């Protein structure tokens, strides 16, 4: 259990912003896209939203934008 905790801690210390960008901001971007583009397939909007979130997360990690979470 302690080994798992250490692995998780180590992983999140490096990748938390990327995960947060991908899942948190990806969900929010998707919701905005669906709100504004109701005629387009939701599947594509979800893919685009989560892709934008992932890019936002990576940019945040590079720039150390801890404010995103």
């Amino acid at each position, binding site marked *: 259990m302690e080994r798992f905790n250490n692995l998780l801690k180590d992983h999140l210390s490096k990748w938390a912003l990327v995960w947060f960008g991908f899942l948190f901001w990806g969900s929010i971007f998707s919701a905005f896209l669906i709100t504004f583009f109701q005629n387009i397939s939701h599947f594509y909007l979800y893919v685009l939203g989560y892709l934008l979130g992932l890019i936002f997360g990576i940019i945040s990690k590079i720039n150390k934008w*801890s404010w995103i979470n």
Partner: protein
Amino acid sequence: MDKLARKESLDSFEVNPAQDLSLEEEKKIARSFMGRVEWEMIVIGLTQFFVWLGVWGLVINGILPIWMGFLILMVSTTFAYLPSHAGQHGHLSGNKKHLAWVDYVVGQISLIPLAQSHDILKVTHLKHHAHTNDPSRDPDYKHTHTGSWLKSALQVHFQTGDRDERLNEMIENWTNNEPKFKEAVDRGALVSLGFFVIQIVMAINFPLETLFLWWLPRKFTVSYLGVIFSHMPHRDLPVGRHADTRFWANGIIRFFNHSMQIHAMHHMYPKICHHDEPKAIEALRPYMIERGIPGADKIPERIINNPLTNLKSI
């Protein structure tokens, strides 16, 4: 709006030369204001949390429009920090050991809208008290001593993460050298991990609600705290118990500033409850003037429900 109790005293006050202004006498007076359970903060902490919870429920069920929920929580979330702060100083338990759990439980519940760990805020805040305005040891230094309130409002968001290397060095140093500090940080890290996961789960299920009812109000509140609780009382002041905090005003009435105009009292005696500070200031005013606390000579003899807007920013 109430008027100052005795406005004329602002210009005419003089310390009574016969009064005993010794440190012992000052402490004796200060102690008379310590030791009670600050029930007001318990009420504020729990109330604002239930408002937050209630607004979430009403918005999710379509009873309240999201924009209205957003506006309500932008205000109520600003009340989330002070109850935790009171708990950090033991005010919620009256510093009674058998009630210490109240400090933690209410403090942590109150911080849910801010998604922060009470333990981590406590240990870093106590370091702020111990080393106020010291650039190498005050965790709040970087967002406090900025050129403008706007810079503070932005800078405070970089307090966490890798960006503030100076703060990271402090935390690493205390973690390595102080076992109790490390224990608190480890406990707090679990709470922070919980908030990290919960926010993601909420965003997946309720994306716009999470943005407008949680993320934005707490970011706004953190900026508000950086400006009103750190920048205004401490900016550009030196290290020193009677020199590191000022009395100040910004033209906005005292209660909208969470009484941070009188934050100097808190730094002089942190064990005095927030709601007892006006009475304590009245009693300790001659000592504050004698010690040269910035702005102490400008405060009125009586501090009631007044705005203190007569205090000029110093």
